[in-house]
């Protein structure tokens, strides 16, 4: 099965391990990965800040880059959700509406792809430790993917998964919100971390690098002993006692 990877700007630049893990994982499950080099950014940062014209230029580039693909898979819930918005954003545009619909229809977030398309829940991963999973807002509410990550994590050998209290509450990232409304964002991320500590998790696992960058960045500043991992990295862990 040919899978075209949309790696996202955050992973491309800052969280390359999550990208590498995604590739290795999908290859091991029998996929042939291609990486359309012309990909840039899904457009969220500009779109969510109200810069719709600017965002649409990025979106058109994405549609060009992925025009010739079967499955577009991305290890980011919010980016997948953004791509699914393209038909709405380009509604009425004679040149781009169909392209937008085409791209949206073949876009999958990673865990969604594993469970719904590859029909796989046990990927043979193992990671020993106590973890909790962060349910990203856009992935759950906009993309509607709630079960897939948990089903996959359930099969990770040695992983003790504790439900995160107040999981439905935003971690405070929200893209530019985290810098424009810093003091408010800080309160939100501190509450999120207090809930992670409540369940005594060693690992915080998530499927959205924006959230992980936010929570992870605060964890580091506070010096908390919580290891932040992208779900792709967890699912790609094999025969290890502790993650690396």
């Amino acid at each position, binding site marked *: 099965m040919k899978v075209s990877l949309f790696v996202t700007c955050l992973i491309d630049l800052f969280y390359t391990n999550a990208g590498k893990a995604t590739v290795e994982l999908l290859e091991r499950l029998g996929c042939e990965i291609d990486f359309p080099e012309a990909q*840039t950014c899904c457009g969220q940062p500009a779109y969510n800040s109200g810069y719709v014209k600017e965002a649409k230029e990025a979106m058109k580039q994405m549609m060009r880059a992925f025009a010739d693909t079967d499955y577009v898979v991305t290890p980011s819930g919010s980016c997948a959700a953004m791509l699914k918005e393209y038909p709405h954003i380009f509604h009425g545009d004679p040149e781009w509406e169909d392209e937008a619909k085409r791209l949206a229809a073949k876009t999958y977030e990673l865990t969604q792809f594993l469970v719904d398309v590859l029909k796989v829940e046990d990927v043979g991963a193992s990671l020993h430790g106590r973890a909790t999973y962060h349910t990203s807002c856009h992935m759950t509410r906009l993309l509607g993917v709630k079960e897939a990550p948990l089903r996959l994590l359930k099969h990770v050998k040695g992983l003790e998964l504790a439900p995160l209290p107040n999981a439905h509450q935003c971690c405070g990232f929200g893209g530019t919100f985290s810098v424009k409304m810093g003091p408010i964002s800080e309160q939100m991320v501190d509450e999120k971390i207090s809930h992670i500590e409540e369940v005594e998790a060693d690992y915080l696992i998530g499927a959205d690098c924006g959230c992980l960058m936010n929570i992870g960045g605060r964890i580091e500043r506070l010096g908390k002993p919580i290891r932040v991992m992208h779900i792709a990295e967890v699912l790609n862990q094999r025969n290890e006692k502790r993650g690396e």
Partner: protein
Amino acid sequence: MPMKIENGPFWKRVEENLQNDFMRGAVAGMQDRGYVRRLGVIEELGHWEEWRSLAEQIRKHTLEHLDYYLMQLSENVTKRGGHVFFAQTAEEANDYIRRITLEKQAKKIVKSKSMVTEEINLNPVLEAIGCDVVETDLGEYILQIDDHDPPSHIVGPALHKNKEQIRDVFRRKLGYDKSSDPVELARHARETLRRDYLTADIGITGCNFAIAESGSITLVTNEGNADLVTALPKTQITVMGMERIVPTFEEMEVLVSMLTRSAVGQKLTSYITVLTGPRDEGDADGPEEFHLVIVDNGRSSILGTEFQPVLQCIRCAACVNVCPVYRHIGGHSYGSIYSGPIGAVLSPLLGGYDDYKELPYASSLCAACTEACPVKIPLHELLIKHRQIIVEREGKAPVAEKLAMKAFRLGTASPSLYRFGTKFAPSAFAPFVEDGRITKGPGPLKAWTESREFPAPNKERFRDWFLDRQKGGKPS
């Protein structure tokens, strides 16, 4: 008080309110308990998404035919002997109500909770002509006697007050001498207000839902105050936002069910009262005269725009109760009687961008509000629309941000520019990197690094790794 609750910068309010530990504890507790209760009643009801879709359809249909239903409503009110005044502006509404009050030589007025009367700032107009205007909703009453402390939540306006503060206010203003036990406080309010109900000349109410087919108004309370406000005084004046209307009793019951479950997690509140006109001939209580004041005050300017869905609102505050931003900053931070997500969308529309330009940005776009809204208003999308307007039409976006977004457009529209730019990101950031992370960031990163570490860009981008791997003959 009018919609705007205070002058002064957004950030000053936010910073003060972030320090208010009691308020934050009260709000968080309310949200947490409410979350569980709301999910419970929704599950018990079943088919919740169908209920939401039905409620949305009812509201959309009504708005699309608003002139028709207001026509039908006014005809039916007047057939029953009630008077209808259509008020385009707040001033017109207040003028009319003042005229009635003067005509009746009224000295005391009792009011049940009405956001629209606060919006038009009715109370001071009546107080200026020598009327004693008494709020009877317990939360509004507490705020009123506390020198008009502004409401912080559209359903539970005194959420920010603790019982000790309430006891102290009662002591100072009402000669109260008992404890801070909520039962004792409520009993004292009951006794004091009882006298007011029995001696008031006019009762003023809001309107949860007007019913077009019969010329009726529906009032939803737990306290029974709206019922006493309308049963005892000789004159009743009901003020309604023009969009608060349903075609028939059948739509009223659907929306009331959505309201009570979404607002307070109850199947129904203790008192749902449908009033039609003045008292019937031969009745011994109920008003002798009934006036319905239908208020526009900027609502019509929302019709026909992308913001029209916000008029579907049934004022349940479900969005407020799930908002993670409201959780920390509280209602007063919004600077408007309408706070939380609905306030962030509505206040700039009714009050303009100058006073409320920060509100659309005080959101992480988590969409909890959109998910909770019983009438499916796409609240977070409307916040993005506001941001778009602020950027494109109002020209109020900061220059640095505009430039950054221009750079974004260039960088992401051109793959080669993108590759170029990201290739050099590591070296551009190098001066700030220590131990693989950035602790004191430059420019926009500065706000980030006030409280968080920022990762250093990897020298080897993912795409470098992938393409090298491909070249190196790795099976792909």
